[in-house]
């Protein structure tokens, strides 16, 4: 929206990973539009608070609906939208601080419900918008503006966390590979259930991990990222755990359980079983 709007003055820093994520989300939504014939207005992007949440204002071209609400609460808002209107395509965009720290309590219940949405998490290992404090994915011992003597907690492992909480689709992406990321987001949106696409999206200002992720042969830096092997059985939870034990960061679909019914499906099934009474019948049941 922002292109037409001089009032909106927020900008990502040059080189920010979130640019790549935005492009991937735009492409995935346009592909979906072409595939389904449904209008762009059929998409709702629920955004968290932080650099990444501003993505909802920075999308270019045809505009989806957006919801830019409260820090940490993207998932239950998305739940309300999706439960109310299952025909909508609901996307969550949030950062590691919003999603894993203040919003961490909402992941397990949505995984248990198998809420039929796709959440794209932009992980930069730092709180960017508040200028460089430590986040759940900041490394142990790291010095940041809020950890002058080093971070005291262990670094969270989001992918393992999602797996343990029972998320039914888990993919890992990198903002520097937008074409692949588009594919993962498309797969996540098509998944009938709770899809997590966890993206490494480096912060060039406070935690620039580009080189570390991609590697640099000249400096002798081995890349951290590697592609999930083609023979990985993504329906096998133990194989997914095994994959996550290997050094570095796998990119691709880590785990997918395509058989579990989504919350929408369960709601429909329950509607079929629940007692149906009109307002008048309900009122009459109280008559003396």
């Amino acid at each position: 929206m922002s292109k037409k709007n001089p009032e909106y003055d927020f900008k990502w820093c040059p080189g920010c990973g979130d640019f790549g994520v935005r492009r991937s989300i735009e492409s995935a939504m346009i592909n979906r539009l072409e595939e389904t014939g449904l209008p762009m207005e059929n998409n709702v992007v629920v955004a968290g608070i932080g650099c990444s949440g501003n993505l909802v204002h920075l999308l270019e071209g045809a505009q989806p609906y957006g919801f830019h609400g409260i820090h940490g609460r993207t998932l239950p808002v998305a739940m309300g939208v999706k439960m109310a209107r299952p025909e909508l395509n609901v996307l969550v965009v949030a950062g590691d601080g919003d999603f894993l720290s203040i919003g961490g309590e909402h992941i397990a219940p949505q995984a248990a419900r198998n809420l039929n949405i796709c959440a794209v998490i932009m992980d930069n290992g730092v709180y960017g918008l508040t200028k460089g404090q430590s986040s759940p994915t900041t490394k142990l011992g790291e010095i940041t503006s809020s950890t002058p003597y080093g971070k005291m907690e262990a670094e969270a492992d989001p992918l393992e966390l999602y797996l343990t909480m029972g998320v039914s689709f888990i993919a890992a992406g990198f903002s520097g590979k937008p074409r692949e990321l588009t594919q993962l987001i498309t797969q996540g949106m098509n998944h009938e259930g709770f899809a997590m696409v966890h993206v490494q999206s480096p912060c060039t200002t406070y935690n620039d991990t580009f080189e570390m992720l991609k590697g640099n042969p000249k400096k002798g830096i081995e890349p951290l990222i590697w592609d999930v092997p083609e023979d990985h059985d993504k329906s096998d939870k133990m194989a997914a755990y095994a994959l996550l034990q290997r050094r570095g960061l796998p990119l691709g679909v880590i785990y997918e359980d395509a058989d579990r019914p989504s919350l929408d499906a369960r709601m429909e099934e329950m509607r079929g079983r629940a007692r149906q009474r009109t307002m008048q019948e309900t009122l009459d049941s109280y008559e003396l």
Partner: protein
Amino acid sequence: MEMKDFVVRFAGEGGQGVVTSAEGMAQAATQVGYHALTYATFPSQILGGPTWTQARISDSPILSPGDDVDVLVAFNREAYDNHVDEVREKGVIIYNSNDFELEGDPRSFGLPIEELAKSTGNTRAANMVVIGALAHLVNMPQTYLDEFVQKRFSRGRPGDEEIIRSNIQAMGLGRSHTAESGLSVGDLAPPRMPDYKQIMIKGNDALSLGARAAGVEFYVGYPISPATTILLWMEHNLIGEGKFAYQVSSEIESITGILGAGFAGKKAMTATAGPGFSLMSEGLGLAWMAEIPLVVVDVQRGGPATGLPTKTEQSDLLACMYPAHGDVKMPIIAVGTVEEAFYGAIKAFNWAERYQGPVILMTEMSLAERVQNIPKPDLSQIEVEERQVYQGKNGYHRYHGSEVSPMPLPGSPGAYVANGSEHDEMGDTTHLASRHIQMTERRFGKLKLLEEDEFEADNTQESIALMTWGGSKGSALEAYNQLRQRDVPVAWYYTMFLNPLPPRLLEELRKKELVIVPELNYQGQFSGILRSQGVKAESITQYTGLPFKVRDLVQKITEMTKTRRKETVGA
């Protein structure tokens, strides 16, 4: 002596059938043409713990639970010890002689409740033994009660006849056993069957039913006393085509869930009590800021923090009116009776849709659990308002202008960002002073749409007025009626609409020398709000966890009117 009404209190352990006895008595009485109102407090535990419920039975509509107990039914010794002081001088105490023996109280007699029930061959007829005993004490003709039993248990099932026989026998045993005691509390006036249809309903059910009548489509909630029964009602009555009700993981999920549903176009609601309401603060601010219609019910209990979970209080008014940080002031409807719970819920939805924002519907513990017979609502007379929805093709800005504007819904043209940050017309974040001024004024200006005309007013020429709020209405109105009989010069005003107040009402209140506000909190929250709006208001406060007694209000109001008149004369 003919009595217009009587109060019976059932006291014992949780799980002894204390509540079912009171509600059974109320059911029986209303079936034969009396009016009934129950009042209950529960222990915060599943089984055991002292609990009591009382029913007030009258030949005319009832306003309050009643000050004094005419008959105490004590299921155990502890119940007798705890409640005997509240039995009026000429009252009677029935004690369960299957549980304990009592000597030296001439007002009491033992009733072997379970034993008598057992002798009929139906141990579940224990309630009927007690109802029979009560009927004798107030000289209620047995034919009424026999009819009630016939009607209630004629369900076309094979065992009906036997159940009817044993229940009638149980009532007869209770009656004859009581007759032997020689005790009585008087003759209850004969019932006058109302000439209109009635329903018998609990406050929280009436509120839920009202929400349903208003078209609620989406409900999520989290269990918390005394609001849980609304969640349960919705789960039993709202799951269907385009509708759903669901228990979520926290009150934060509740408020954000209905934010999502309200944004997506549904009439959405949640209900909670104090602690849950506190967790909803941030979400309520967002609903105000992003202009999303929704209804939040606060069933007040004693606070702060966990407070008194099973007692009544009216101490959340300030929290409900100003729940969030920043410049907000929530529309508030506070219901005062079971009937108002039904109509107030409808109004709350109408308000939310009309001004496109959050509405707080306040009720309280004493109303939530109150069972009462009320006139059956006529659904054809109910006005339901719908949201103004954007129907155009595109190029529309959701937050355009300084007034309420059509709301685009996902799936249709008009895409925007519902934004909790200050925003421009299309919902993008902005920091411009001119925008913050425009949008702040827009949000407050919309409250004008909620200014209602109607309010209760009586004897308005007096310069001293009585104006309570919420669940204290019944006791205050009963006190007012007594004051009028004694020619105490006082006017009556009342409204469910606490914010915004009906403008004509506010105008009248400002002209009064004194507005007396009975309310169940320490600070005098409503009188403080009235004073801030230029009304000379003073509270009568009480913070016992119990409702006002009519007697206390009559005494205090009389004193306040006398003092004020002396001051006026002295000046």
